[in-house]
């Protein structure tokens, strides 16, 4: 089992500056999963401001630390996921999460959260669904270095007022 801080080669970030709050990611996520439940959710941060939130697959993930059964774990690609057959639904992960991300699966009572589309990627996809479908390219997937670079580039472009694309 991976230790909580065993950060993997891939990560995903949401560029809130670019995000338009359109909700495509949520719909895509719903569509991808058999149970029709989104793992990324658009919430109303303040009135009128819609932004998505999903698992950040933290570097030292408190949810993995808190999980009493080891159902919450990290795979070799860096995604923190729930092994459903071991999850007892205690939701310690939810209370441990600084962003309150995990949800109770309404059908199974287990913990429900983003796993960076593990199954899709294992099946050959290059990136999670939300990343692929985001119309504003606000969701990014890649190695931490790549992501940092991209974000830096974007911040610079933003600062200089350059057109982005």
């Amino acid at each position, binding site marked *: 089992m991976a230790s909580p801080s065993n950060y993997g080669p891939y990560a995903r*970030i*949401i*560029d*809130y*500056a*670019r995000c338009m709050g359109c909700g495509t990611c949520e719909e895509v996520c719903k569509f991808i999963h058999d149970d029709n439940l989104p793992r990324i959710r658009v*919430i109303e*941060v*303040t009135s009128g401001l819609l*932004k998505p*939130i999903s698992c950040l697959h933290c570097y030292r993930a*408190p949810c993995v*630390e*808190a999980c*009493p*059964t080891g159902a919450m774990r990290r795979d070799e690609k860096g995604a923190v996921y729930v092994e459903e057959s071991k999850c*007892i*639904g*205690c*939701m*310690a992960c*939810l*209370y*441990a*999460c*600084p*962003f*309150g*991300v995990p949800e109770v699966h309404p059908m199974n*009572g*287990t913990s429900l959260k983003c796993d960076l589309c593990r199954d899709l990627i294992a099946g050959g996809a290059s990136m999670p669904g939300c990343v692929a479908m985001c119309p504003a390219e606000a969701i990014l997937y890649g190695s931490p270095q790549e992501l940092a670079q991209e*974000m830096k580039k974007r911040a610079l472009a933003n600062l200089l007022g350059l057109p982005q694309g």
Partner: protein
Amino acid sequence: MVKPILKLITVAKEVGVVTRKYPYESPLLTEEFRGKIEIDASICWGCGACVKACPSNALTIRESMDVMELVYFAGRCIFCGRCADVCPTGAIRVTKEFELATDELEDLEQVVIHRKVKCPICGKHFVPQPLEKYVCEKCAKGEIPTYMMVCPECRRKVGVKKMIRCKGG
């Protein structure tokens, strides 16, 4: 006609009387028997794993504003012991108690009362105190980080706001 009589008498004589004189004698229990469960309230977190695992809904959670009650109704229990399997703290113990007969259904109830933590932002009560204590010990070595005092919904909003500020701002 004589043969069955003789056979019966032989068998009866060989076997003797096998009756166990329960309740004056101890019952025919083996050490593996699963009876009623006992919930040790002092270590129960109120996480609800047992409730999720219980096939017959003998364990249920009754929620009110600031209190969460874990209710065990032995009358519906199928004595499978799954709750004890999944309990992360070992608070549930399967006993050998089976003498549960009663004329009042109420007698079969066991209730564990959990007080819930109040969110300072929205004022909602959200997590049973012992569960929060456990999470703090596990993730923050016992001190309560500020975010943990806040309910998950408020955490999301606060979290996104913070991220917008540091990344997009």
